[in-house]
């Protein structure tokens, strides 16, 4: 709908080609048979003509917003909304700055031919970073509109007032002009400034927080009605003329190589189109979807097993990780030392040591990866839910040998992503097959592929050591991590996507990832953080490819860090909240984001909302079948601070852990949409419970054996807490500051969950669970070991 409206903004006085060449509304220059709901004009590009999908120029105001003749506005941002409400929140911010009513606006997200390259989503920074750039542009548009009105009404700008797209002369409501009259249907033609898209700005200042009207309101999400009544068109729904269906055939053993493919095994199947093989990449294509599924099952491929086991079995994983020689520093800042931890530990009255193990976790989206590639007219259009459409575009262009200007990516809704998922891989596969075939190809992964072959959040083996002085003060903390993240897979890289790896393409050098320890603001005078990467014999073409998974490394490092703070509290006979506050208050130093003050605020707020009574853990173990306890965990991520309290119920007969209640103190600065924030935090907390209690990617020495929802369990309705309280805190030392900014939300809360649960189990039972996930059999074994 927005596209038609934007098209209506083109007045027809110039040819479309000229129009495309000039700056401004070249956002209209798209072509081909698009998805329903998106316009469908053919592009009449001839050979030798400029490529049709140039980058959208972030230095032109018209690239970011259009005011229509009726005074409504369309915003364009280079972001995607995975269902956390960032689209709605962005609209609230932009409407506030532009002074347009919320319901007279709309938002286009993540189309590489129409929206500026803001990188797509990731890092929970949609509001913190990208919406702020768009906000400054909206403020600039308002400034320009006021200047136009001043001309029109022959008064100085400061004699004008504006509200909901109408400007009038103060004191004379008869002299008014609407935004639509001023610029509707025409371009602003205003240049912006900024060294990069994140720094985009005009001359205008943004409004002080106190003047924002929509910001702070729980406006219902615009995407929900279409998700509830079945009317929304998703990336999986797009159908194109001559479209065919593809399925992959994966190696049955990790590292297996193709010896031969017998096409005759499927050639006679109905609807058969082709078998495509290069290196160890194998795919089948058929006219109909169920035909492709059948052909992929039937295709005879002779595979040769690798001579050497590709990786240890998951049961031996942590012994392997601790016993092998590390290969790298694990990225930047891999070793950080402060004070002299060795001397401090040697002189400590009490030394505590503990080892924590966190397995590989998968994204395992509810809908397996998919992508649709249309090679019509010598161009390439990808329909995808990939959260990073811009790198999807450039990566695919590089992989199939096209210029980026020939490729566009249209982001549409899809199953949840939360990081570097197989949506990247499926889009590349669809594009490669479409290029081979010359027909639109829809690639759809199976459940087994999604679970076994999606990129994984890396496993960690973490050894902690801490020292207390005679008064129970923490004087030293030593963190040593090993991370199974030797060849970290980035987003949409033409040399690390799965199809490239299977074809034998390798990056110039592997990219070990994950260098930092837990993010906290504790004042501990002597400390060390060291992270080393380890590798398995099979580094590429492996189902244990590592990539970003929601809050990369955060839940793992915070599980060790925040469990261990509780171990120190127990050794010091201190209350876990009291010890944390003592460590947070221990230093007078602050940082520019006032993170320390806001760390204290969230711990205090969570404890108060929960009704935390000060006492050391564990409590006296009860005599009934159900044991209950509470645990806290605190962390920051970037500039957002979080403290989460979990209350658990443990069935001593079965070992089942139920997180009955959660309280989350959360400070992310300025809150745009409180209900959207709460929903996002709830999702992150529950996903955290799932990773803590159930999720683990299992494998034997040959292949990943977690292949479906039975072998890779996830949180269910039965496991959902009875009550979740998200306590929104503003711990800024100057809470009413007019320039208060929003900080990232979502991932910061996710990382607090594992330790909060493990600490609550310890509180209830005295048992310290140091290996995730905390499945019933493991809890039961520990309870039995403790004689409970």
């Amino acid at each position: 709908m927005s596209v038609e409206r934007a098209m209506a903004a083109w007045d027809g006085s110039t040819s479309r080609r000229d129009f495309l060449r000039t700056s401004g509304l070249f956002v209209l220059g798209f072509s081909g048979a698009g998805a329903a709901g998106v316009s469908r004009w053919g592009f009449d590009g001839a050979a030798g003509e400029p490529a049709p999908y140039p980058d959208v120029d972030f230095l032109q105001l018209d690239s970011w917003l259009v005011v229509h003749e009726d005074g409504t506005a369309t915003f364009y941002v280079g972001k995607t909304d995975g269902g956390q409400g960032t689209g709605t929140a962005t609209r609230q911010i932009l409407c506030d700055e532009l002074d347009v009513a919320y319901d007279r606006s709309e938002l286009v997200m993540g189309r590489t031919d129409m929206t500026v390259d803001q990188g797509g989503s990731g890092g929970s920074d949609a509001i913190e970073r990208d919406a702020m750039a768009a906000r400054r542009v909206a403020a600039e548009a308002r400034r320009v509109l006021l200047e136009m009105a001043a001309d029109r009404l022959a008064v100085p700008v400061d004699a004008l007032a504006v509200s909901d797209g109408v400007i009038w002369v103060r004191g004379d409501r008869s002299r008014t002009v609407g935004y639509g009259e001023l610029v509707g249907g025409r371009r602003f033609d205003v240049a912006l400034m900024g060294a990069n898209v994140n720094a985009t700005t005009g001359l205008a200042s943004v409004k002080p927080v106190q003047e924002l009207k929509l910001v702070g309101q729980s406006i219902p999400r615009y995407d929900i009605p279409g998700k509830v009544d079945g009317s929304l068109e998703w990336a999986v729904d797009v159908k194109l003329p001559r479209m065919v269906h593809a399925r992959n055939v994966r190696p049955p053993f990790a590292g297996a190589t193709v010896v031969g493919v017998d096409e005759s095994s499927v050639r006679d199947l109905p609807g058969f189109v082709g078998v495509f093989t290069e290196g160890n990449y194998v795919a089948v294509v058929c006219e109909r979807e169920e035909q492709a599924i059948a052909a992929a099952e039937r295709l005879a491929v002779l595979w040769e097993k690798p001579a050497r086991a590709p990786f240890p079995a998951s049961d031996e994983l942590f012994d392997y990780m601790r016993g092998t020689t590390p290969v790298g520093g694990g990225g930047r800042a891999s070793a950080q030392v402060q004070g002299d931890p060795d001397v401090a530990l040697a002189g400590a009255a009490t030394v505590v040591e503990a080892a924590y193990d966190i397995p590989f976790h998968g994204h395992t989206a509810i809908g397996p990866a998919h992508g649709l590639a249309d090679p019509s007219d010598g161009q390439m259009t990808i329909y995808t839910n990939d959260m990073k459409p811009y790198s999807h575009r450039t990566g695919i262009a590089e992989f199939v040998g096209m210029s980026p200007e020939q490729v566009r990516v249209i982001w549409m809704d899809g199953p949840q992503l939360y990081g570097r998922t197989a949506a990247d891989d499926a889009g590349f596969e669809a594009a490669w097959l479409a290029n081979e075939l010359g027909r639109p190809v829809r690639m759809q992964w199976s459940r087994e592929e999604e679970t076994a072959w999606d990129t994984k959040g890396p496993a960690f083996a973490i050894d902690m050591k801490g020292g207390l002085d005679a008064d129970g003060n923490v004087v030293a903390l030593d963190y040593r991590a090993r991370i199974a993240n030797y060849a970290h897979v980035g987003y949409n890289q033409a040399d690390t996507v799965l199809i490239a790896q299977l074809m034998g393409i390798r990056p110039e050098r592997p990219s070990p990832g994950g260098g930092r320890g837990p993010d906290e603001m504790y004042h501990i005078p002597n400390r060390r953080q060291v992270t080393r990467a380890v590798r398995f014999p099979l580094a590429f073409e492996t189902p244990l490819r590592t990539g970003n998974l929601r809050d990369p490394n955060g839940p793992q490092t915070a599980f060790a860090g925040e469990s261990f703070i509780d171990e120190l509290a127990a050794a010091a006979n201190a209350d876990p909240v009291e010890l944390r506050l003592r460590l947070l208050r221990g230093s007078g130093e602050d940082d520019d984001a006032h993170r320390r003050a806001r760390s204290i605020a969230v711990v205090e707020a969570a404890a108060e909302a929960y009704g935390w009574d000060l006492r050391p853990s564990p409590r006296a173990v009860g005599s009934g079948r159900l044991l209950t306890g509470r645990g806290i965990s605190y962390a920051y991520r970037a500039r957002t601070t979080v403290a989460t309290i979990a209350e658990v119920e443990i069935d001593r007969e079965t070992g089942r852990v139920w997180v009955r209640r959660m309280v989350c103190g959360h400070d992310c600065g300025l809150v745009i949409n409180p209900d959207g924030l709460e929903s996002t935090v709830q999702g992150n907390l529950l996903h955290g419970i799932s990773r803590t209690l159930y999720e683990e990617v299992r494998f034997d020495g040959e292949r990943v054996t977690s292949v479906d929802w039975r072998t890779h369990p996830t949180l269910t309705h039965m496991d959902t807490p009875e009550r979740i309280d998200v306590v929104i805190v503003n711990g800024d030392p100057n809470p009413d500051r007019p320039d208060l900014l929003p900080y990232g939300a979502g991932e910061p809360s996710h990382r607090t969950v594992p330790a909060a649960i493990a600490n609550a189990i310890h509180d209830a039972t005295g048992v310290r669970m140091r290996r995730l996930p905390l499945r019933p059999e493991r809890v039961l074994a520990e309870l039995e070991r403790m004689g409970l």
Partner: protein
Amino acid sequence: MSQITLRVNGETRTVDVDPSTPLLYVLRNDLGLRGPRFGCGLSQCGTCTVLMNGNPVRSCSRPVSRAQGTEITTLEGLSGDDELHPVQQAWIDEQVPQCGYCQNGQILAAAALLADNPGPTDDEIREGMNRVLCRCMTYYRIQAAVRRAAEVMADGEVER
């Protein structure tokens, strides 16, 4: 291939497909419906749910031949012409979905649950909804929305 006649959302539709084709692909690819979506193909997650004579069925594992002679309702057919089913309205009121991909199954499971048991306890909601998975983990809001829908349906009016 053979001619298969289906009753979908109150209309009679005829398709020419292999009778063993899972109903899901016929609904999506031949009839152009968007509600039921592929999640696992194994009857484990519920994303592909449709109602068959009012009962939730996993269309990914049901051959289309075994759907003949039943009244199939998809998410698109749950609402009346002018107003949403109370469960759908409750989903909006509670702002349930995140990505929304699984919500087809959640909504249809809830509608079937409430048709069967208009006043479920919290435990009955958990048990009744348990086999429908959500990876955005919107369970907490789903359960609140089921309670809200149950109240609205009992009152016979929409609560605001």
